[in-house]
């Protein structure tokens, strides 16, 4: 069974410090939802508020439509996977997985049967008798998932569960987690500071900054249509050009920057005279293009096979990044060359500075 999770104007304060400010959102049942943000922005605090370890200073948490005020962590239909995993070192793998059932008074045989079932689900079927510290990092990770799933939560909360793993394992576990989520069909609320993780796994992402939710949307919309300068800068690479709106018209705005005047989309309807930042993705910035053109000197070329990163210094000293993909990679300019750059106005976005 799955449940939706609603936050309504949730604020969490520690003394005078506000860790989460006025967070409101609705996570649908069965959704894979991520909170993405830099370290210290309040992600763990939100998760702990949902799981019941922290009572919000104001606002309401509802799970499956039920107000969770006064309901302790042990009574909520959620299960949390801790950043540190927090497996029990004095128990075997199977006992760890079965702990939640033991709490519920299940018989030993029923517990062990369920533990075996879950260990099979996470591909650890033959490891049940081992001690936790005999497992590798990735295996421990999966034990933690199995232990949380054993209590049949309606919502699974995961706090940066892959951060301790090496790159390869991390990528493997992304697919694994997504597959497990599809199989069990419950709501997953996932926390990460890694945008790649958030983009690849999630149905929707909430981007957080300094305790506030900046934007909620699916990966594509967060990436292609950021609504704040923070989101534009944090999710993926972006070239930022600061300046002032010179003129507006039909969804577009012209921004006057030290590099020249550039046209870009104006989703928030900034008016002339407002300070603004124009963002262009590296893959939307083209060498030799004449629209929205400026010039810059190549400082760095990093060849990555299918992609080439080209770093440039613009005339005002700011850094620009161009991403050449596919057939373009052969045409990377030599270091030191002065090149003309340009972009399609529809690929650029004009936002107020953060």
């Amino acid at each position, binding site marked *: 069974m799955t449940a939706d999770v609603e936050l309504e104007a949730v604020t969490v304060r520690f003394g005078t410090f506000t860790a989460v400010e006025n967070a409101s959102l609705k996570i649908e049942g069965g959704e894979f939802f991520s909170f993405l943000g830099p370290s210290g922005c309040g992600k763990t605090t939100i998760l702990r508020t949902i*799981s*019941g*370890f922290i009572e919000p200073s104001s606002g309401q948490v509802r799970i499956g439509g039920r107000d969770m005020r006064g309901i*302790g*962590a*042990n*009574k909520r239909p*959620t*299960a*949390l996977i*801790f*950043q*540190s*995993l*927090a*497996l*029990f*070192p*004095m*128990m075997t793998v199977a006992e760890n997985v079965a*702990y*939640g059932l*033991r*709490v*519920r008074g299940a018989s030993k045989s029923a517990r062990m049967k369920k533990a075996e079932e879950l260990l099979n689900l996470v591909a650890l079927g033959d490891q049940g008798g081992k001690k936790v510290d005999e497992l590798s990092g990735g295996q421990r990770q999966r034990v933690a998932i199995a*232990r*949380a799933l*054993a*209590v049949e939560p309606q919502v699974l909360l995961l706090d940066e569960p892959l951060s301790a793993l090496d790159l390869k394992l991390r990528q493997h576990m992304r697919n694994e987690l997504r597959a497990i989520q599809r199989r069990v069909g419950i709501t997953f609320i996932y926390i990460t500071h890694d945008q790649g993780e958030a983009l690849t796994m999630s149905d929707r992402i909430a981007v957080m900054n300094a305790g506030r939710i900046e934007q909620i949307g699916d990966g594509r919309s967060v990436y292609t249509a950021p609504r704040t300068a923070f989101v534009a800068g944090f999710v993926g690479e972006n070239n930022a050009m600061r300046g002032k709106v010179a003129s507006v018209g039909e969804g577009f705005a012209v921004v006057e920057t030290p590099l020249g005047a550039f046209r870009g989309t104006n989703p928030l309807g900034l008016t002339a005279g407002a300070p603004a930042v124009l963002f262009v993705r590296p893959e939307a910035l083209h060498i030799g293009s004449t629209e929205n053109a400026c010039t810059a000197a190549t400082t760095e070329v990093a060849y990555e096979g299918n992609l080439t990163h080209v770093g440039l210094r613009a005339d005002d000293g700011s850094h620009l990044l161009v991403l050449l993909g596919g057939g373009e990679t052969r045409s990377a300019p030599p270091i030191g060359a002065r090149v003309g750059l340009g972009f399609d106005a529809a690929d650029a976005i004009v936002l107020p500075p953060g």
Partner: protein
Amino acid sequence: MLASVGHPFVLALPVVVLAMFLWIARRERRLGLVQGPGYFQRNGVPIGLFLLIAVLAWAVFMIVLPQLFMIELSFRPKLPPSQTFGPRDVYSLQNYHYFLYGSPTSSANWNTVHLRAFWQTIVASIVVTFANFALCYPLAFYMAQVAGAARVRFLLLLLITPYWVNEILRAFAFRVMFASSGLINKLLLAGGLVAEPIDFLGLDVGMYAGLGYAYMLLMVFPLYNAIEAMPKAQIEAARDLGAPWWHIHLFVVMPFARPGIASGCTLVFMLTAGALAAPLVLGGPRSLWFTPIVYDRFYQAFHWPQGSAYALILLLTCIAFVLAVMRIGKLSLVEITR
């Protein structure tokens, strides 16, 4: 066997054991099992010699020899000084026999007084140890997992300061508190809760309170250390999985802190069973504690061999009991000394 023969043997025993160690060490070096610079090369001769002599002298004279002599003495009869090492000074089990039957030779009657005191001491020590654990566990948990650093320092100070006072004085303080005209009775009388003062000392309430308090620190510290090493996230994980608080303590915290629990309980049990000050000062007229009996063997009966035998019986029983409990709890000695 004559004591005049056995005595030098006891003296020689540590020397023989040391010589054996030395021989083994030389052999291992000769066979190449141990390599690298030798002990004196590493520490230098003066420091090496000092360490060796200091440690050996401490171990041999303070620990090994007194114990060995006590064991040896326990098998000897009580004789006037003139007959020591004489023809009548032979080894026998008569002191142990006396403990069981109340007579050096006859086996007609059981030595009920001593046996009952012994049994009662062991049982009461177990009870005191449990009570101590029940009292100290919440305190240790609070200090290790709940309280902030400043609060912990304050609590530690509160715990330690009373132990600056001598054990006997502390026992007398309890006596003052529990006496018929003592503080507690005064309060009870003033509060109208009782009409007559309660004889706490006669009922051994004072003795058990004193015994329980005497070694509390030795319970709190190992528990505190063990529980402090536990990551908070484990407790939260158990809670998140639905565990009520008692389940978390019983099946998550205590198993984690098992070595600390064993270490604290062992210390408190051994020391309580061997405690002298509290039973001597606080024991009521009808109290039966084994250590005062041992004390009496030495200083009232002036029967040192018998006192030695009694002390040894207590020591060995306690050790056997602790080892048995550890065996049941699947704990090794190495684990609890961690």
